[in-house]
């Protein structure tokens, strides 16, 4: 069957492969090469070695964006997952209307980043107005604004994954614990949490990579204001590329660093949480 099928490769694989090569693979390789050059139109690229990387790390904007992103990712990953897990615990109890609540909490996840950004801009500016301030008055406002936005968007999404995880716990394990006289808190610590570790792995991965890659929400909510102090990595790279002519090489070098950071964080996090998973 294998040999006979082989000649169908062009029909089954080629269209996808061509699109993937054009949209992703060539641009990816080209991007790595260009990060070592100075260019404005790709054809005029001139080799400059590691200079782009050195300029990237010596630019205040990039290091600011890096720290802002790291802080944002840590705070959002923790808050989103804690709230999502608590909601999942409440919604797996036998009470009326769990389906309706689930539907409501999940909804913001479907709304796009640009729309989300402007929704929260309106609300946060409205809250700050009586104090004579706006969202771009202090970088801290932008930071917490993004955290709130991220929570609103992601809690429902993570919650449904946790609910699926909790519902997968075998009933007899719970029953056995209850018969043994375990209280609610013991069941949570000794049974629920260890058995939903696979969901935790997934949720941490999703919130982490979404936080690091955040762009639309950042652009719409503050666009980096005041004075680029709320610019995250993705937006900083965008600004470097399109903000001024002549720094495309630096932008590309920043993008390579960004990719490495995202990949590294993902690998470390997956390794850490996978270890804590138990077979059930």
């Amino acid at each position: 069957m294998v040999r006979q099928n082989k000649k169908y490769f062009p029909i089954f694989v080629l269209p996808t492969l061509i699109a993937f090569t054009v949209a992703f693979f060539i641009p990816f390789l080209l991007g790595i090469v260009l990060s070592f050059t100075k260019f404005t139109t790709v054809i005029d690229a001139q080799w400059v070695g590691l200079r782009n990387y050195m300029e990237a790390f010596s630019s205040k904007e990039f290091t600011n964006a890096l720290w802002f992103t790291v802080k944002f990712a840590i705070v959002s990953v923790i808050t989103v997952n804690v709230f999502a897990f608590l909601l999942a615990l409440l919604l797996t109890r036998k009470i009326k209307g769990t389906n309706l609540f689930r539907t409501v909490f999940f909804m913001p996840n479907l709304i796009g980043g640009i729309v989300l950004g402007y929704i929260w801009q309106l609300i946060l500016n409205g809250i700050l107005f009586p104090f004579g301030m706006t969202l771009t008055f202090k970088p801290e406002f932008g930071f917490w604004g993004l955290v709130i936005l991220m929570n609103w968007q992601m809690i429902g999404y993570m919650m449904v994954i946790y609910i699926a995880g909790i519902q997968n716990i075998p009933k007899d394990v719970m029953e056995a614990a209850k018969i043994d006289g375990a209280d609610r808190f013991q069941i949570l610590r000794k049974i629920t949490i260890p058995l939903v570790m696979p969901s935790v792995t997934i949720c941490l991965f999703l919130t982490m990579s979404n936080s690091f890659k955040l762009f639309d929400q950042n652009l719409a909510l503050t666009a980096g204001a005041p004075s680029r102090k709320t610019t995250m990595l993705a937006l900083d790279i965008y600004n470097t590329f399109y903000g001024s002519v002549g720094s495309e090489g630096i932008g590309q070098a920043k993008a390579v660093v960004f990719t490495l950071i995202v990949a590294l964080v993902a690998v470390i996090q997956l390794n850490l949480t996978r270890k804590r998973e138990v077979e059930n």
Partner: protein
Amino acid sequence: MEARSQNHKKIGSVMLFILLTVLSILFLSPIFIVLMNSFKGKFFISETPFKLPNSETFVGLDNYLSGIEKTKFLHAAGWSLFITLSSVTAILLFTSMTAWFITRVKNKFNSMLYYIFTLSMIVPFQMVMFTMTKVANVLHLDNPVGIIVIYLGFGTGLSVFMFSGFVKSIPLELEEASMIDGCGPIKTFFLVVMPVLKPITVTVAILNSMWIWNDYLLPYLLIGMDYKTIPIAIQYLKGGYGSIDMGAMMAMLVLAIIPIVVFYITCQKYIIEGVVAGAVKG
């Protein structure tokens, strides 16, 4: 004793119900606030967004009319719909074929393809943003039809990964029987495999639709000058000078949310299941 703890339980669940109701209202309030402000005059929005419209501030549908005109919203909605539907169709057709083929025909090249596709998922868009735009310009893919090819390329990672995972769980016997009956791989795929793939196809379709419908940067860089999708039209409303027509903005936000809410309410079950399945496999 028994009755008392029963009573306690009842009170507990009533309290829980009230708590969740309050939280739900809180969760939905941002959308209601936007809706409410979309009926207020543009100068009464930024400073007092939490006030209901009154006879002085109420402007009826004015914001909607001016917003639709300013953003050419109907065009934007048309382009969003066209690009999303055609790209998702292309992704479903081609990546399911590819996933089946590289899962069933085992050789080094195919398994290498699988790993490259999978790894591409983690790469942030900014890595290829500039070079992809250049490549697309050279190949004349910077139009609403060409962008389908680009979306197929970017959708490959997740979609092949998910289809492959599902194909692995289908017993080979089905396909072998069809081959013995004299069907070639093409007939076998479309008549035997594709119907079996239905549940995962729904999942892949939902994940890709949500992504493409809401995508801003890719279409903005590729076709944003001439063809604006809904997110591009909304961002365009902000303009370059920081002065936003808040009335039009509120109305356009409402119009952007309505299709999503309708879609969500009609296929809510599939969406939540699909997103969970997507996350668990991804």
